[in-house]
C-alpha cells in the first residue's frame, strides 16, 4: 500500500487539458509489468492520490505511461510535478480487458474521450497478436477534433490495414473532414459477426449506455460486452468501499466488468 516514488521521464501534452506522463522504471528489475486495462494509484505528494489507467504497451514494461486529464487539484498537482520530479505509484490494480477470452473472435473497441487511454494498451496488444483475433474495429469519439487523444497514433492506426478505425466528433467546424455524430452511430459500419464479437468499451457512462443498447440491438451478447468504469477509488484493493457498486468493488472486481454483471446496477439512481 506504500506508494513507490518514481521519476518523471517525460511529459507530453495530448490536448488542451490532457497530458501523458512517462515514469522511469529503469531501477525496477523487469520494469513495470501490467495487463491492459489495469490502473495505478498516482500520488502527488502532499496533495492526494488518484486512480489513473495505464496507457502504455504491455509488451514494453520498461515504459510506464499514464494519460491524465487535469480536472482537479490532484491531477493539476501531478501535471505540475514536471520532468525530473517524482510522483508516488502503487499498483497495478484491477481486472484487465478479457483479451485471452477474445481470441478467435471479432473485437470492437469503443472509446469516448479520455476512454481511449485505458484502451490504448488493449489496441497495442491486439496489434501485436493480430493473427489471434478476427476482425478488429476501433471506434473513437470525442467532443471536438481538438479533443481527440493520440492524433498521430490514430492516423497510423487508420492507415494500418489490420484495423478498421472510425473516428467521430460531436461538434465540428467546416475544416473537419471526418465524421460528425455520436459513437454508437459508427457501429453500423462495423463488420462483425455479433454472436462471435467481444466489445471493449470505455468512456462517459452515458455514451457507454447508448453504445451497449446499439450492440444489443445488433445481437452482441451482454456477457461479451465489457465496460471499464470510473468511480471514486481510494484504497484500490476493495477495503474502503468508496468505489462500491452494490455488490461490486470497481477497484477490485473491475474496473473492467462485463455488462451481464453490471446490468442490474449500472442504471440504479441510488448508487
Amino acid at each position: 500500500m506504500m506508494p513507490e516514488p518514481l521519476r518523471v521521464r517525460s511529459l507530453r501534452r495530448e490536448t488542451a487539458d490532457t497530458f501523458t506522463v512517462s515514469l522511469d522504471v529503469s531501477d525496477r528489475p523487469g520494469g513495470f509489468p501490467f495487463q491492459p486495462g489495469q490502473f495505478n494509484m498516482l500520488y502527488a505528494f502532499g496533495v492526494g492520490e488518484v486512480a489513473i489507467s495505464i496507457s502504455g504497451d504491455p509488451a514494453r514494461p520498461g515504459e510506464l505511461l499514464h494519460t491524465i486529464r487535469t480536472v482537479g487539484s490532484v491531477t493539476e498537482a501531478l501535471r505540475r510535478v514536471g520532468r525530473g520530479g517524482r510522483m508516488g505509484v502503487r499498483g497495478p490494480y484491477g481486472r484487465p480487458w478479457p483479451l485471452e477470452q477474445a481470441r478467435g473472435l471479432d473485437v470492437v473497441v469503443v472509446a469516448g474521450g479520455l476512454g481511449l487511454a485505458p484502451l490504448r494498451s488493449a489496441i497495442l496488444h491486439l496489434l501485436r497478436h493480430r493473427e489471434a483475433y478476427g476482425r478488429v474495429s476501433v471506434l473513437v469519439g470525442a467532443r471536438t477534433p481538438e479533443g481527440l487523444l493520440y492524433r498521430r497514433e490514430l492516423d497510423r492506426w487508420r492507415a494500418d490495414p489490420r484495423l478498421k478505425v472510425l473516428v467521430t466528433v460531436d461538434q465540428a467546424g467546416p475544416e473537419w473532414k471526418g465524421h460528425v455524430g455520436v459513437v454508437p452511430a459508427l457501429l453500423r459500419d462495423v463488420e462483425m459477426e455479433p454472436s462471435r464479437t467481444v466489445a471493449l468499451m470505455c468512456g462517459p457512462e452515458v455514451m457507454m449506455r447508448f453504445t451497449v443498447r446499439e450492440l444489443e440491438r445488433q445481437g452482441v451478447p451482454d456477457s461479451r460486452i465489457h465496460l471499464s468504469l470510473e468511480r471514486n477509488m481510494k484504497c484500490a484493493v476493495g477495503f474502503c468501499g468508496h468505489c462500491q457498486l452494490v455488490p461490486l468493488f470497481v477497484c477490485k472486481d473491475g474496473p473492467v466488468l462485463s455488462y451481464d454483471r453490471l446490468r442490474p446496477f449500472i442504471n440504479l439512481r441510488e448508487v
Partner: protein
Amino acid sequence: MASPLPPLEEHPFLRGLSPEQVKAIACDVREVSFPAGALLLREGDEAHSLFLLRSGRVSLELTVPGQGPRQLESLKAGDILGLSWLFPPYRWHLDARAVEPVEAFALGAACLRGPSPEHPVLEPALAMRLLRQLYERLERVRMQRLDVYEAAR
C-alpha cells in the same frame, strides 16, 4: 474498378418492401450525383425530394451568424436525407453539403405526399420507416445534446 451501386429496391431504407410498395413510394425517382463541396440542400430553398444516399458522405450544416457553418451530423451511404418536404412550408431547414462525391436517389416529394397536397397520405410502409429514422435521429441528438464528454469532466 468500383462495384456497381445497388439498385433502388436494395437501398436499406426500402429493403424488404414488395415491388408494389417500392413502386408506390418511388413513383418519381431520379439518380443524382454531387461533387465534393456541393450543396445538396440549401436552407430556405424549396424541399422537393427525399434523398436516399448510395455513396459518399454528406454533412448537415447550420450557419451560425458570425461563426460560419457548424457541422451537426454526418450522413452516409444507406442513410436518408431531407425530411422538410413532409410539412408546409416545404422549405429546407438546414444545409447539406457533400463532403465526398455523393450518389443518391432523389424521390419526388409531391409523389411521396400522395395525390392530394391538401390531405397528404403517406404509404404506411414509408411512414413507419420515416418514423424509425426520425426516432433514431432523435436518440442521437439527445446524446449529442447531453455533451457527455464535457459532463464527464
